[in-house]
């Protein structure tokens, strides 16, 4: 546009560039708009902050983000890309070792490979998706700021007597030749509206009735909430603000929580299943968990934490029975029940040594599966631990080997010294588990010594094993309170904006001719019925629908 646009209204008010309706009297300023269609009332026709005649580079960026049209485009692009992310499972749904570059191609073929190559396997962590969210956040700030301030100014200094064109080109209008006294009728009409919760402003016979202006701020409060929400989410990437890891704790064990100074002990894990009579026919006989619980103790390491040679010194800080939905909470750290494994694990046995020749029993002695003492003295006998195996087997070369590091099929080789035995000691192979004893024929291997002595466990009370392991999910989220505050703001704003509507009625009487115009930001139906009821009460019967001046429902 060449030259300076004339933005001075005939009422003498100087408007800024981009103003649609005079900020003072409301007369439409677009001189080429000679129609009598309802006016565009958005933001009360005031100029947005960003509207300027000579935009420079910064203005252009500002204007880009200030446009609702652009904002809608960004919303649409965001949900379309979010859809793409749900086609195949995302990478983060796999907890254990898995190689995405192989997995997707193996499972889904070529589409899976392309899915991986385009980075859609981590859509929601990708820079472009985050970028979209950042742009939406920017748009929320700039759009709101650009509109709320001028709108606030316009609404806080409204003129009561509006230009006839302004009134007659509202979406809800009414014209009538008054026969009664003008002042009196206006008083009456105002009183009726007052009863409906309107605030009445008078300027002679001109009248402005307004209600629920606060609902105009709803969208902006909602946007503030959303910005807070987005910032809170962003804050989670600050180191130490967020943690999400898993820890497996067998019954009775104490395990360090990775990357923290905390240790967690599982004193006892229990699982309860639904009984058959509690289940519908279809599910009878299936193991459907009803409750699982970990009796957990949280410790904090107070000294020797990083010492490789000494045991850390732990201090109990919290004790809690963790069940689903009831995590252990301590200083922002939360331990959730995630899963469990009911494979039993042998921890220790308390066997006795029996001298078969005399029938004498010695012991019992404590034999842990891991890191057992190297020597046990039992009466006249001495047991020197020579070797131990976690999962005993005979290797290819005929030598004993272990197949794993977990006590699946433990075995111990002792050198036994004592009465009637070789003074240098005789080897004795001991399997704590009965099944292994039979499988590897313990007595045959031990040969001669098996006739003299026996190491055995008497009764289950001398067996210490973990019935199950609990899987706990360790979480920490310091941004959480801000997330809720953001959500609350956003919700309050939404409610304000949706369930209340800002309604205004302008009225002027010129020589007995009544002109009435009404505007609302939502719900024209309610607007019309407000006007029609008030008119009816003052003796003017009118069908609400006839007040409609056409145009669109905004």
């Amino acid at each position, binding site marked *: 546009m060449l030259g300076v646009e004339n933005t001075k209204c005939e009422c003498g008010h100087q408007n800024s560039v981009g103003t649609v309706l005079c900020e003072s009297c409301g007369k439409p300023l677009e001189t080429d708009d000679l129609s009598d269609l309802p006016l565009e009332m958005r933001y009360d026709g005031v100029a947005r*902050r960003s509207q300027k005649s000579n935009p420079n580079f910064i203005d252009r960026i500002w204007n880009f983000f200030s446009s609702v049209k652009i904002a809608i485009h960004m919303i649409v692009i965001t949900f379309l890309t979010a859809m793409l992310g749900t086609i195949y499972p995302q990478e983060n749904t796999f907890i254990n070792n898995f190689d995405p570059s192989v997995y997707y191609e193996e499972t889904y073929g070529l589409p899976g490979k392309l899915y991986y190559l385009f980075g859609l396997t981590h859509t929601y962590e990708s*820079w472009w998706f985050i*970028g979209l969210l950042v742009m939406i956040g920017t748009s929320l700030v700039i759009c709101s700021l650009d509109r709320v301030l001028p709108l606030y100014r316009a609404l806080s200094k409204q003129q009561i007597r509006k230009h006839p064109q302004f009134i007659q080109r509202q979406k809800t209008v009414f014209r009538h030749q008054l026969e009664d006294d003008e002042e009196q009728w206006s008083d009456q009409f105002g009183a009726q509206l007052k009863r409906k919760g309107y605030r009445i402003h008078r300027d002679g016979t001109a009248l402005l009735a307004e209600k629920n202006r606060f609902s105009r701020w709803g969208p902006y409060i909602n946007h503030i909430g959303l910005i807070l929400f987005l910032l809170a989410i962003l804050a989670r990437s600050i180191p130490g603000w967020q943690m999400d890891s898993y820890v497996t704790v067998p019954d009775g064990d104490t395990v360090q929580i990775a990357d923290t100074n905390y240790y967690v002990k599982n004193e006892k894990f229990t699982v309860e299943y639904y009984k058959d009579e509690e289940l519908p026919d279809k599910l009878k006989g299936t193991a459907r968990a009803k409750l699982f619980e970990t009796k957990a103790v949280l410790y904090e390491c107070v000294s020797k934490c990083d010492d*490789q040679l000494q045991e850390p010194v732990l201090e109990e800080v919290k004790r809690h029975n963790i069940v689903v939905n009831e995590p252990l909470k301590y200083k922002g750290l939360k331990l959730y029940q995630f899963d469990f494994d009911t494979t039993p694990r042998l921890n220790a046995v308390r066997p006795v040594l029996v001298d078969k020749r005399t029938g004498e029993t010695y012991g019992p002695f404590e034999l842990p599966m891991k*890191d057992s003492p190297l020597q046990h003295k039992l009466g006249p006998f001495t047991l020197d631990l020579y070797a131990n195996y976690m999962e005993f087997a005979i290797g290819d070369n005929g030598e004993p080997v272990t197949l794993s590091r977990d006590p699946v099929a433990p075995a111990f080789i002792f050198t036994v010294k004592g009465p009637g035995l070789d003074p240098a000691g005789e080897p004795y192979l001991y399997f704590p588990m009965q099944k292994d004893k039979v499988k590897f024929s313990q007595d045959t291997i031990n040969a001669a010594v098996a006739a003299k002595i026996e190491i055995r466990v008497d009764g289950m009370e001398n067996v210490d094993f973990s019935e199950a392991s609990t899987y706990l999910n360790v979480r920490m989220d310091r941004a959480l309170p801000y997330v809720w505050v953001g959500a609350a703001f956003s919700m309050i704003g939404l409610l304000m904006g949706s369930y209340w509507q800002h309604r205004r009625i302008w009225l002027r009487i010129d020589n007995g001719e009544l002109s009435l115009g009404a505007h609302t930001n939502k719900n024209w139906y309610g607007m019309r019925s407000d006007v029609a009821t008030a008119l009816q009460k003052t003796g003017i019967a009118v069908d609400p629908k006839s007040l409609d001046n056409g145009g669109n429902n905004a």
Partner: protein
Amino acid sequence: MGKSRKTVQIVILVAVLIIGGYAIGSALFSGKDEGPLKAGSEPPQFELADLDGHVHRLSDYKGKAVVVNFWGTFCPPCVKEMPEFERQYEKWKDQGLVILAINLSEDTLTVNNFVRRFDLHYPILRDVNRKTERSYGLKSYPTTFFINRDGSILEIKVGGMTEADIDERIERLLQR
């Protein structure tokens, strides 16, 4: 009015640039840190005790060629490799080769017996609670990391090697 508006615009745009840049930046770079270790990346630090109670830190060996091997007595190819590493250690140690063999959280007796049986002289480190193993993202055993003098990984070898394989790699490692 014009002046203050301009300041507000610039302040907001700069804030957006910083916050948004941080968000997008951390999305761009976090993915790379978390991925499995690759040749060229930095190996995670560790601090572990050996069988004699000496503490070894990976950082102690900065500037030296280091071979970090994860092994267990329950893994036959590891068992086969260990004496081969011993021979290689004897061969190259004068040129500054360091071998750190990290045991996969086994029983003290088991490790001691093994070391005595094969008469190993390079440090055998004890990784209690599988901590180091996890930080290295181990999936199968044995796994050997060849670490350059500059502290970057030359190669990660998953699975057993022949002695010639080891020799060739160590030679390459020492030349760099």
